[in-house]
């Protein structure tokens, strides 16, 4: 399983765009990149997933360069409610896969 490295914490202000980068140098050919969001005392929630290039949904965008050794989660115009821990995970698509969570990035959005 590919190990991921991401910043421990980030600060931002309401209305700004936030970009959280994750390194996964040992990503395998059939690995996907998935990001989760976790609020205190809640289970993580799926945000976005991608394999290569760019993926966008109603919540965020995920940018993956050609070498796939890193990825960037982009949150447009954050609000106070985006304060949470964000996890980057890498895993394969076979039926017995298991996701290993790192320490995540603690994002604090200030007024």
């Amino acid at each position, binding site marked *: 399983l590919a190990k991921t490295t991401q910043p421990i914490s980030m600060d931002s202000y309401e209305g700004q765009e936030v970009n959280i980068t994750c390194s996964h140098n040992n990503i395998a050919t059939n690995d*996907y990149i*998935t990001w*989760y969001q976790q609020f205190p*005392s*809640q*289970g*993580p*929630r*799926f945000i976005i*997933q991608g394999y290569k290039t760019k993926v966008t949904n109603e919540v965020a965008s995920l940018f993956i360069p050609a070498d796939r050794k890193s990825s960037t989660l982009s949150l447009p115009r954050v609000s106070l409610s985006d304060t949470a821990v964000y*996890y980057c995970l890498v*895993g*394969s*698509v076979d*039926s*017995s*896969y*298991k*996701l*290993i*969570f*790192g*320490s*995540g990035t603690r994002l604090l959005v200030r007024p």
Partner: protein
Amino acid sequence: SQTIHQWPATLVQPVGSPLSLECTVEGTSNPNLYWYRQAAGRGLQLLFYSVGIGQISSEVPQNLSASRPQDRQFILSSKKLLLSDSGFYLCAWSGGTLEYGYTFGSGTRLTVV
């Protein structure tokens, strides 16, 4: 739609007492099921996962065990709790592929005193 239920929400147990946490999934069949634990201020630690009835894989040797008596039921147990078993326990399911990832339950906050 699929839903995942986990209970109880909070639990305070004395050291040496037994533990049983239950997780059930509705609206899907043959899910992959997972138990995670999260210590205060820390990331999630994968404890057990199951790809089918009676099939349990343990990730971390410890004081806990898991069972899957039915397709959509996953139970986390301990015969004698330790102080170090305190934490936030989360059950999750997936459809066996990475599309849409995992869906987590609401968690159980366990405090061993």
